[in-house]
């Protein structure tokens, strides 16, 4: 019992790669045991929305905002898939891991701090969101959406959006004391944002105040970026959309770390 790691004798800093890697390895190994159910729930539901709205409204409305309706919804539901696969995984997963499984206690007994734990958890959820977010796009291609080179950026847009929503979910898990209270957040934050992101109808059809509010909806910026990736980027506008997602990710990242540290460290 003398194989003390060489790392121990020097002072350890913040956001260290070995600590992030350790938490990520745990997530990846665990994911191997439940990837099927996770992939199913994260991709099938948005795909059902795509098919239902695409064919349902698509039979009534042929073109919206200059796009075929299936193309409009097909690109829009990428954001839905990203949202579903990030915010719910983060909310429920984090809560279960710190409250019921005590996994975070185990990890924090190793040389990992809360900042690294939260960051690595969000990174992994964001990677999954980036991948799962592509599912509706692939389905839309089957129904006539033409592939374009810009679509190669969709996983990155999904990753960035997913990171923000993962951090938001971890923040919610840290501030709420009961898993039953998550329904308040789902009903008052997640569902309204999901419905007013411009996924199923353009925000331009809403009253002006709702259009202004829509600019504060991170999911709207994801929807716009994905559409522009598919049909042509719009320069500064897309830079602003990216900036909004970066700000969302940074704010929720710091909030999630702060509140999770309060929860985990007495």
């Amino acid at each position, binding site marked *: 019992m003398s194989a003390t790691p060489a790392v121990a004798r020097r*002072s*350890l800093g913040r956001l260290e790669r070995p600590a992030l*890697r350790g938490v990520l*390895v*745990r997530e990846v190994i665990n994911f191997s045991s439940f990837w099927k159910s996770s992939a199913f729930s994260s991709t099938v539901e948005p795909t059902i929305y795509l098919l239902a709205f695409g064919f349902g409204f698509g039979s009534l409305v042929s073109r919206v905002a200059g796009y075929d309706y299936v193309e409009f919804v097909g690109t829009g539901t990428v954001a839905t898939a990203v949202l579903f696969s990030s915010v719910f995984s983060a909310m429920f997963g984090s809560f279960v891991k710190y409250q019921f*499984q005590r996994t975070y*206690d185990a990890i924090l007994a190793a040389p990992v701090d809360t900042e690294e734990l939260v960051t690595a958890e969000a990174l992994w959820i964001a990677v999954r969101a980036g991948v799962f977010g592509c599912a509706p796009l692939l389905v839309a291609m089957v129904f006539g959406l033409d592939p374009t080179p810009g679509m190669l950026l969709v996983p990155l847009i999904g990753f960035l959006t997913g990171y923000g929503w993962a951090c938001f979910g971890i923040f919610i898990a840290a501030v709420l004391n009961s898993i039953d209270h998550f329904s308040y957040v789902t009903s008052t934050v997640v569902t309204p944002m999901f419905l007013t992101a411009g996924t199923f109808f353009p925000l331009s059809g809403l009253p002006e105040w709702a259009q202004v509010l829509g600019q504060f909806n991170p999911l709207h910026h994801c929807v716009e970026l994905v559409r522009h990736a598919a049909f042509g980027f719009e320069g500064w506008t897309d830079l602003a959309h990216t900036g909004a997602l970066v700000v969302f990710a940074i704010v929720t990242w710091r909030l999630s770390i702060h509140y999770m540290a309060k929860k985990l460290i007495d």
Partner: protein
Amino acid sequence: MALALSVRGAVKRYGEITAVDHLDLEVPEGTCVGLLGPNGAGKSTTMKLLTAQAIADEGEIEVLGHTLPRDSKAARAEMGVTPQLDNLDTTLTVEQNLRVFAHLYRIPRAERRDAIERALDMARLGDRRDTRADKLSGGMRRRLLIARSLVHGPRLVLLDEPTVGLDPQVRQELWALIDALRAEGVSILMSTHYIEEAQRLADTVTIMAEGKAVASGRPSALVAQHVGREAVEVYGPPARLAEVEAQARADGFATRRTGTSVSVLGIENANGEAPEGERRPANLEDLFVMLTGEEAE
């Protein structure tokens, strides 16, 4: 002797409640120290202070030469922690659980396999490496928890109630494991509320009550100092026990109820005043009950 950890005047408050109250605690290198106390005495909070999962309001804590909480991460890299509550990844196999922690403890890739094998051997779980954690018995899960805390070859191990809730046979298996660890020179701080566990494994004990260390030292010396050498145990109906108790106290002896009997303590100096009963050597349980006012398990 150099210290693996030292706590000086540590205080931890939760609102109105003081969970740890000016606690002093030392673990000399290569020794096993038992942190003994009833439920709610502050043992688990003390353990959390040592991993910086709780931050002391007052006092100084040093672990393996690192000052806490500032250098807690470096301290955690060199120590292992076995928690009271089972927090294994239940859907992972035994080996996967160890592999995860081999990564978390930053064991270099070239040494990882050997480290896992060593931990499996120590916990005698080699033949269960591919079994999911949720398919293991309670004793095996506890052995896996200990193995997980040893995978990186720590210099210090914190064992928080390592055998709580286990049947006597499994408890003895774990004692053998902890004893082997001690024989390898690993410093151990073990919290427990089982007297026999502390008596068998600990070189020294610190007894906690209401957040304070009420006694520290070698078990035999503490018993001799606080209880005396001998006790007499008197059996009888409740009225008789009450009478013995009252008389003994009137004669200046300490007593304690032991289920169906009363123990009168320190009777080696009784000069014929001791009640009739079974004489026995005073023990750590007598000391524990005297100092904490709680029945031992």
